């Protein structure tokens, strides 16, 4: 067997010589090329990766840039992907996911001509090269707005929909206990308590971002405890949260993007972050030369980068008082009157 494998290697060497001509990198000069490398989660995560890719596609549709994407399979792929995309001619490269925090610095040092932007990555402004930008989101601010809606609806306006009950209980299902999820959860809790101090917020972690069954079972357990609105911060696991709400006649709150379409009768609203918009604007800033690196931007309500989705079917059910409270919170956060906590320690 080992000799066979050896010969195989030789054979592939020969093939590589034959095909090497086909593998040469071509450089296109004409248009801006915007590229992204996903983390090991890959496309289809319904969150960072999908959102960034949507931004690239939007830029392509608008004729600003050509979009390229590569899905990393393991940690060792990050540096060659980020470096290689630049070598293939990309003008701006997005590294999506905190796991690439080191890789993006390394790649940016290798390719000083290319702009790098890290989504959910914080770069050290004192040491980072000038072509790297760190972009993070204030998920807690979006969670806060969703919390206000949930806090009001579960108790004060519980009679407005037969999907709500009299118990003053709501819930959050997390995919894993990591900072972006924690920020959503903490903001949500703070928002709910701001309008309904006695509300009980149940919390549970599924331990997986792709296990629908776990999400559903956790939601069922919460519903049994009296929860009527469950906020999912769990990626694809969260589809189980929505499914449980649909079946049990309760409500769910979506995350990252407007998840109304998944279950129109059961999704109250969604806490959104504008990954797509942020990606798009970064590409624009590279196109018009206003890109500024070696810094971090933290996008929140002030930048109109996070918020909650339209209420769709629930527009007529949610009272004006709730909508006003949400609008007031938006104004207060913008003016700095409210600072939303971001970690459990601050809550």
């Amino acid at each position: 067997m080992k000799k066979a494998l050896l010969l195989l290697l030789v054979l592939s060497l020969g093939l590589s010589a034959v095909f090497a001509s086909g593998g040469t990198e071509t450089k296109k000069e004409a248009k801006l090329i915007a590229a992204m490398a996903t983390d090991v989660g890959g496309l289809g995560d319904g969150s960072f990766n999908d959102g960034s890719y949507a931004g690239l596609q939007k830029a392509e549709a608008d004729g600003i840039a050509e979009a390229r994407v590569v899905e990393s399979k393991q940690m060792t792929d990050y540096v060659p992907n980020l470096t290689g995309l630049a070598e293939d001619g990309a003008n701006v490269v997005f590294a999506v996911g905190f796991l690439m925090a080191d890789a993006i610095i390394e790649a940016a040092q290798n390719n000083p001509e290319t702009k790098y932007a890290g989504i959910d990555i914080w770069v050290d402004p004192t040491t980072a090269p000038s072509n790297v930008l760190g972009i993070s989101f204030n998920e807690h601010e979006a969670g806060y707005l969703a919390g206000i809606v949930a806090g009001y609806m579960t108790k004060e306006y519980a009679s407005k929909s037969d999907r709500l009950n009299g118990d003053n209980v709501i819930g959050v299902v997390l995919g894993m206990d990591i900072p972006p999820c924690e920020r959503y959860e903490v903001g949500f809790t703070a928002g709910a308590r701001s309008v309904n101090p006695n509300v009980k917020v149940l919390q549970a972690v599924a331990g997986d971002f792709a296990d629908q069954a776990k999400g559903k079972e956790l939601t069922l357990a919460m519903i049994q405890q009296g929860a009527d609105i469950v906020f999912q911060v769990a990626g694809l696991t969260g589809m189980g949260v929505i499914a449980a709400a649909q079946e049990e006649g309760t409500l769910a709150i979506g995350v990252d993007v407007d998840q109304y379409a998944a279950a129109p009768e059961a999704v109250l609203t969604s806490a959104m972050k504008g990954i797509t918009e942020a990606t798009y604007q970064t590409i624009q800033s590279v196109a018009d030369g206003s890109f500024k690196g070696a810094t971090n931007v933290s996008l929140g309500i002030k930048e109109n980068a996070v918020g909650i989705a339209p209420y769709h079917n629930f527009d007529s059910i949610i009272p004006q008082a709730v909508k006003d409270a949400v609008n007031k919170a938006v104004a207060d956060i913008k003016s700095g009157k409210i600072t939303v906590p971001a970690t459990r320690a601050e809550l």
Partner: protein
Amino acid sequence: MEFVIELLSATMRLATPIALAAMGAAVCERSGIVNIAMEGLMLIGAFFAAAVALATGSPWLGLLGGIIFGGLFSLLHAWSTVTLHINHTVSGAIINILAAGLTRFFMVEFYGHPGSSDMVQKTLGDINCAVPLLSKIPLLGPVLFDQSPTVYFMYFFVFFTTFLLNRTKLGLHIRAAGEHPMALETLGISVRKIRYIGVLYSGLLCGFAGSFLAIEYGRFFTEGMTGGRGFIALAANVSGGWTAVGSFVAALFFGFIDALQLKLQVMGIFKIPPEFFHMLPYAATVIAVAGLVRRSRPPADSGNDFSIEKEM
């Protein structure tokens, strides 16, 4: 009381896919083929169940589609292990890679994006299957007899698989194929054919389990939704001593601990990192295997390649 009922109902739901796959594994391994491809087979079953249910609007057709495609895909494992003599574990690992790649590929081809499919409007879970009188029995009634259809199918398969293995001629042949294949061959019965049947049986049950996850337990197909259940089923089969009843009991135990950790988390009584809850089912399985399972012997020829040329 209500808590106990809910806990045990959740146990049944969580145990069902594991039990189905584990019983399939019992037959498969008794016939002499190690099947670590179950994770991939379940994923394929889940995808086609959701795809067919979405296309036709009928969850029953979806279930059928999931079972059929799970079975078809398992034939690849049978072909590669029995006919092509590839090592069973390697073949299984490759099939898992292929299944993950294929479902992702189909997602993009069918729905234009990876990740999760559209919502299945009408699922098997929506069908009320409370058994008229039995579901009124206190405690056990709602737990055992107020479930969705596949749970009842699972009960059926516990009996059917046991019957098949122990009371039928085919079962005798299956067991012989795993213990003394050469003896079986000398009787003029094709070991290859029997092993194909064993793998197919496990493929059909994995397709069943996958369909349950996609269009009964859940309402969507999501990539990687099997979440390691194929491997847990393998463990359940082994700790169940390669029998259908044993697999079922082991799956129930695993489902119970999983349900318990989920409930405990939501109740928020213990202020410990959530990961400790996630470890609980695995730790409990080790303890159960250590304390309860006496020396169980795998089928003598399981995992071994069988070729007449070599044996002669």
